[in-house]
């Protein structure tokens, strides 16, 4: 098991990059001419949203791996990615609401297509865990979850396209300008923040994978030792040990 050292390196690097990104956001990037200081939320909210959606899509790609090979390690990878993306998704929605309140004066703005599309995707993925939980057979659970992950992964870009089309009349400025017309200093800060957030996601993903694998191995060990008091596996949304 080589988790230890590489994971530590990754964790330190991500923390560093993320700190640098936030430092850049506050001390280097210029004040936005239009929104002023509030725009600093952008360097947190948007990278988080991008990484969250990337995680959903990564989960879908891993799910394809399960459907192609039948190897349950892909199910675990897909599950952990979607699980973490859901957690990040909560952060995206909360910071998005705070930003909406600060810049438009209300906690929710239906005219903002990206935020609305994000909410729809988040609500879809929120069904992922209940779906898993209500299927008992681990193999079936893995396969059905994978089908869900593939469909939902394909849905994410479609959904953004459709919602944006619908709201194309009402166009707020900075939120949609993810890259296009940003001045160089802002863009640099934004890119560093995306890199840092990606690092954070990968770190947590590896950490969670290591933790799940350790639990499986412990359980397998208990079974090998013929532990009669081994409690039956708790029914859960998380994948069971691949056998």
């Amino acid at each position: 098991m080589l988790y230890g050292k590489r994971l530590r390196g990754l964790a330190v690097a991500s923390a560093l990059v993320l700190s640098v990104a936030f430092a850049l956001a506050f001390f280097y990037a210029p004040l936005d001419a239009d929104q002023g200081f509030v725009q600093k939320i952008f360097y947190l909210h948007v990278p988080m949203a991008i990484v969250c959606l990337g995680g959903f899509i990564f989960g879908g790609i891993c799910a394809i791996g399960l459907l192609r090979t039948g190897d349950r390690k892909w199910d675990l990878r897909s599950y952990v990615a979607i699980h973490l993306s859901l957690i990040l998704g909560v952060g995206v929605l909360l910071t998005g609401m705070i930003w909406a309140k600060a810049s438009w004066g209300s906690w929710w703005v239906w005219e903002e297509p990206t935020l609305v599309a994000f909410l729809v995707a988040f609500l879809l993925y929120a069904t992922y865990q209940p779906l898993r939980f209500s299927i008992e057979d681990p193999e079936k659970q893995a396969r059905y979850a994978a089908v869900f992950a593939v469909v939902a992964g394909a849905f994410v870009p479609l959904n953004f396209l459709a919602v944006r089309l619908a709201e194309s009349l009402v166009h707020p400025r900075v939120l949609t300008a993810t890259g296009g017309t940003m001045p160089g200093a802002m863009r640099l800060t934004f890119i560093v923040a995306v890199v840092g957030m990606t690092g954070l996601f990968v770190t947590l993903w590896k950490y969670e994978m290591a933790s799940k694998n350790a639990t499986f191995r412990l359980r397998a060990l208990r079974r090998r030792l013929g532990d009669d008091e081994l409690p039956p596996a708790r029914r859960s949304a998380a994948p069971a040990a691949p056998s």
Partner: protein
Amino acid sequence: MPALPLDEAGKYVAGAYVVFLLLILVYVAIMAGRLSRLERELGELDDAVARRTPPSASSNGHDPAERVSAREGDR
């Protein structure tokens, strides 16, 4: 839309970053809980192994292989 003055905007910006921080902290706390459960189970496993090889067996020099063959002789 007018830009909010700094003191007003600062509240919101701080709020957003605190949300992020809290999210990470809660996640770490949950993972810590899971880790301690893992550790507890590992401890139980340790005990189970210790019970299986009683200290007396190792102190009076019984070879585990001997015990196996003795048991097989019973059949």
